[in-house]
């Protein structure tokens, strides 16, 4: 265990992380942009309109991946938080905190595209149904984590306090996910499976596959980028930061 920790601390040391992030961020975004382009093309032009919902069903191709990400990112944040709290690894604190704004962005997209989609299909922008409500609560939780992190002066203490909140808040994730099963709601139940038999036709499924990959790659890119900026800001007095800055400035 101890050796593992040591290894983690070494490869995860601030200068190493900076190099790592600088190296991989462009790749992650490259993958994201390409798959997104393909996926969006498929969604907008290649797939035929749905016989029930018409054109508006194309919103699915962004709504669903972003909705999945909104939950996934919170889980990642909670896992990083555990590591940050138990082993006090600095990079994990940064990564956990960098998750919050990305996750909040995905949650916001889910909420907005969902309500835009709701207007033509349900006839209203918003209702207080369990899934929508719990997703809104998820946004509040993200905002809360960001707010707490911003409100505390000492960066490391702030990260630990906010990580604790993320841990407490993670109970909301299963609520969002299972809301459609536990209560009867307006919102669609689980219909889509990327692996195995799905209730959706495969010919309509493939753009979704691309946008799902795109959202994952985007998350990685954005996470690295944010964590790198935070890392550099906190270490700005150190020598390596000056040298690293000299390299590409």
């Amino acid at each position, binding site marked *: 265990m101890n050796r593992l920790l040591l290894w983690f601390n070494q490869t995860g040391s601030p200068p190493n992380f900076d190099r790592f992030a600088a190296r991989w961020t462009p790749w992650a*975004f490259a993958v994201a942009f390409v798959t997104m382009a393909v996926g969006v093309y498929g969604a907008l032009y290649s797939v035929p309109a749905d016989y029930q919902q018409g054109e508006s069903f194309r*919103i699915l191709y*962004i709504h669903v991946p972003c909705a999945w990400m909104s939950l996934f990112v919170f889980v990642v944040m909670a896992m990083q938080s555990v590591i940050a709290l138990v082993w006090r690894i600095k990079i994990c604190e940064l990564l956990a905190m960098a998750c919050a704004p990305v996750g909040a962005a995905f949650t916001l997209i889910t909420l907005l595209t969902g309500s835009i989609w709701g207007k033509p299909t349900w006839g209203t922008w918003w209702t207080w149904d369990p899934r929508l409500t719990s997703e809104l609560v998820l946004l509040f939780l993200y905002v809360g984590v960001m707010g707490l992190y911003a409100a505390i002066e000492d960066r490391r203490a702030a990260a630990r306090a906010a990580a604790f909140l993320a841990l407490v808040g993670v109970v909301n994730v299963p609520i969002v996910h299972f809301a459609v099963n536990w209560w009867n709601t307006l919102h669609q139940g689980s219909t889509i499976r990327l692996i195995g038999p799905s209730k959706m036709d495969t010919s309509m499924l493939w753009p979704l596959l691309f946008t799902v990959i795109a959202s994952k790659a985007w998350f990685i890119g954005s996470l690295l980028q944010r964590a790198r900026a935070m890392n550099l800001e906190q270490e700005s007095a150190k020598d390596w930061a000056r040298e690293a800055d000299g390299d590409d400035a």
Partner: protein
Amino acid sequence: MSNVYVAASFAVTAIILGWDYLSPQLKLRRVRRAIRLRARRDTNRKS
């Protein structure tokens, strides 16, 4: 007509992701400038 909804949601997504992409880059640039200014001040003080 429902194209409006599709366009709106794609636009919203583009805006939010654009913010998500740009804001850390702006922050990185700001941090870099601060580091450089500080380094310059330090060298000035030493010399």
